[in-house]
């Protein structure tokens, strides 16, 4: 759990006393986003935000909620197919950035004959397999260890909503930790499907027909409202009530 929080600016040196001290000396210190290590033992920040220290995991990072999404391995993202090459699809994660590649065989039980055909501009829910600053990110729609899709794959129908990167992170953390109760509260009354992309995209599918469209919009807009106003749990419930009344 996050315990301490200090505001940092780029170039601030993190004093050794501010670093987490793990009871287990064999556990290495983990530096998260926004920190860099200058050998031998200087740790400075690179991003403005709040410094978070987690003693249990022996980790520290800077928390911020602005800027463009930068891909990192094992992130779940919602990508848009741009074009098809012979062996792979070119996908966009955020506009105006280099394409990510999604091999055409990286789907559950896909073979040369059964691979899914994705039209340009269709959406796909995928995991980032690898990415380095020098190469385009590689995506996959199967879990490499089991060969199962595990919820990944092409997204049919529905609508996407833009959300902040912080909100996407919170939604991934789930109810208590990210303190978002919106989706659960809505799901008690109406049925819908969601997929959260770490690239700041929320996909909602509320079913077919006029009612489906209304549900989709209600869910999407409720999340966007909670995001823009940074609502706490109590206010989120109010938003949910309002959204349900409109249905």
């Amino acid at each position, binding site marked *: 759990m996050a315990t301490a929080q200090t505001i940092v600016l780029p170039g601030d040196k993190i004093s050794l006393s501010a670093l987490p001290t793990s009871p287990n000396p064999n556990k290495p210190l983990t530096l998260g986003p926004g920190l860099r290590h200058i050998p031998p033992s200087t740790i400075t920040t690179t991003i403005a935000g709040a410094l978070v220290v987690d003693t249990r995991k022996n980790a520290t990072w800077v928390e911020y909620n602005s800027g463009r999404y930068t891909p990192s391995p094992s992130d779940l993202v919602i990508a*848009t197919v741009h074009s098809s090459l012979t062996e792979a699809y070119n996908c*966009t994660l955020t*506009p*105006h950035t280099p394409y990510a590649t999604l091999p055409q065989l990286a789907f559950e039980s896909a073979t040369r004959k059964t691979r899914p055909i994705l*039209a*340009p*501009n*269709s*959406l796909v829910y995928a995991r980032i397999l690898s990415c380095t600053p020098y190469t385009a990110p590689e995506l996959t729609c199967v879990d490499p260890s089991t060969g199962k899709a595990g919820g990944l794959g092409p*997204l*049919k*129908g*529905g*609508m*996407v909503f833009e959300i902040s990167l912080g909100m996407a992170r919170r939604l991934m953390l789930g109810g208590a930790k990210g303190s978002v109760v919106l989706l659960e509260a809505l799901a008690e009354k109406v049925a819908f499907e969601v997929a959260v992309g770490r690239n700041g995209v929320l*996909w909602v599918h509320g079913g077919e027909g*006029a009612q489906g*469209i*209304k549900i*989709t*919009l209600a869910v999407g*807009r409720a999340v966007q409202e909670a995001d823009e106003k940074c609502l706490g749990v109590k206010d989120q419930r109010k938003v949910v009530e309002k959204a349900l009344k409109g249905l």
Partner: protein
Amino acid sequence: MPREADISANEREFIQQALRENIRLDGRPFDSFRSLELSFGDEYGVADVQLGKTRVIARISAEVTAPFPDRKFDGIFNISTEFSPMASPAFEVGRPTDAEVILSRILEKAIRRGGALDTESLCIIAGTKCFSLRADVHIVDHDGGLIDASCIAVVAALQHFRRPDVAVEGENATIFSIREREPIPLSMLHHPICVTFSYCDSGEIMLVDANLAEEQVREGEVVITMNKHGEVCQIAKYGGTSVDALTLLNCTNVALEKVKDITKFIQSKLEQDAKKRDVGGLMAELSAENAR
């Protein structure tokens, strides 16, 4: 090379379906504008317009030059629209996109050639001296509706602008700075306002003030410019599909209503600003006295 990213097929499908069910993404009725905000700067002739998430700043400036030899009795008025990467990385400096060309053409037609500004009043000495007015339109944030927002910004800025006072004695003209003499408002003949209709399904669906996502889904657009008296300054239709003439007629009726509202809104904001300025002006003078 860089282009605006296409929206996904899912979004396109969803927006069209929703429109057929009479639902817009942000819950607005088809014939309503997003929330409109207008503010003026400390200087004369700067209007900052926010239309939903779209934000446009127009700025008027004046200088004294020689008039064109074939138009000796007219001043000069130019509108410059240049997109910057601020609104979207797809906008490149020095390489106009289609949207930019269309925007500058419509503003040109609607405001400049529509005779909103009385250019003759900008003449100081026929053939030798006149005011050259320039409107710079800066697109700061882009979420569709650039034409409507820019037009409101320019028209409001023109109404807000004050040009320096001049005194002519024979062949000599003296230009007084703002400190020397109270500057003079421009003489405007009418206030044209643009209303953009985006159509889908061959004009079955007509949307007022589409946002960026809706603009990407639409089949085409009809831009109607008129003033509050219902005089149409220009109509432009882009996009290939044909639209029923009756629908178009209906659009002008809706446009008139919107134009009346917007003109009234600009007027109220101008009055508010004038009130604020009056108090501020007096205060500034007093404090200047004290400093000396």
